[in-house]
């Protein structure tokens, strides 16, 4: 199990859609956007093209990208959403 899988496991499925939106906000606002690996960028674009960004796979890719670009901000946002375990897992990742 990867570190991202551990983080995802600590987020209830019911809140995944709203967390996804917050992750997308973080990713689009990030000043580090040009450093996103092209493989991750292609996955985001491909999943979005197929309307799968809100799927389980999409959630995982958004989390990976968000943690890659803005680890602290991602943890803060999860804390704000009362997902403390997920936030702690990200800080430890």
């Amino acid at each position, binding site marked *: 199990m990867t570190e991202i899988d551990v983080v995802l496991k600590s987020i209830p499925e019911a809140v995944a859609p709203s967390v996804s939106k917050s992750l997308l906000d973080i990713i*689009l606002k990030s000043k580090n956007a040009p450093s996103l690996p092209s493989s991750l960028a292609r996955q985001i*674009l491909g999943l979005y093209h197929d309307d799968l960004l809100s799927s389980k796979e999409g959630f995982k890719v958004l989390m990976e990208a968000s943690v890659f670009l803005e680890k602290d901000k991602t943890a803060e946002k999860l804390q704000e959403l009362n997902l403390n375990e997920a936030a702690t897992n990200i800080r430890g990742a």
Partner: protein
Amino acid sequence: MVKFGIEFVPQEAYWKTTYYAMLSEKSGYDYVWITDHFNNRNVYIALANILNYTDRVKIGPGVTNPYVMHPVGAAQAMATLAEMAPGRVVCGLGTGDKTTLDMVNIPREKPLATIRESVKIIKEITSGKRTTLDGEVYKISGVKLNFKIPIPVPVFVGAQGPKMLSLAAEVSDGALINASNPKDFESAFVSIKEGLSKAGRSLKDIEVVAATAFSIDKDKDKAREAAAPVVAFIVAGCPEQILARYGIPVETAGKIRDAIVKGDWGSVLGNVNSEMMEAFSIYGTPDVCVEKISQLEKMGVTIFITGSPIGPKIHKSIELFSKEVLPHFKN
């Protein structure tokens, strides 16, 4: 029925511009335009990537300039894009931004002849014709692509002054007018009709495109705040006759220009007033935007472009535009 376009400056990571283009397609826009400056991401590469991830929206450079990109090269690039997505590619052509041309010591000479000849070259080459031109600016002989594209590429001309507007109407498929206020369109239509008359054409033969500085938000002040820096740049580079049209003193425009050069953003924004905002942008809540777009549609604008900044947060503003503005025109 008016169609809608959106303009992006490829100054952000390539995948973000692509994402915004996809969002625009999913939100109901008809066109995505990408600006062309050599110091941003390359426009043709950005467009190719967008084509790979979209299915319907028409795309094109808005606008490329023949001083940096020879029209034969532009025709080749447009034809390649058109091969990727037949019927979905449009070429916006203009004389370019003087500031960036100065950086590479390219004088913006003979703009009317340059554009007239470039339109001819791009239209003929992308139509699969063998092209020869002994022009005032370009001399080419027997140029033909080694591949065919099924649908020729329409060419739109970016224009502001009366002569360029008239030329756009005379020779191109659309006039891309960089303006937001109905006063500018009143005078633009006079020049457009002159050009159409010269060529024996009518308004039905071309698209009239409003390329606006646009900002939408549910909070009017936030929309204004996002648009103000763009308006400052427009005022700073605005010809005196246009400033006079809106009663803006040349000295004020000079102050803004100097402050931009110094990077004194407090002074830049402090000098942008309500008259300038109204003259050079469309900003505000969805209701206000609907009203202003309707006004331009009634005047004869056939494509409305929401240009930079679009809003305080681009993706939220696109979604808001899609939910609260587009339905007024598309249903």
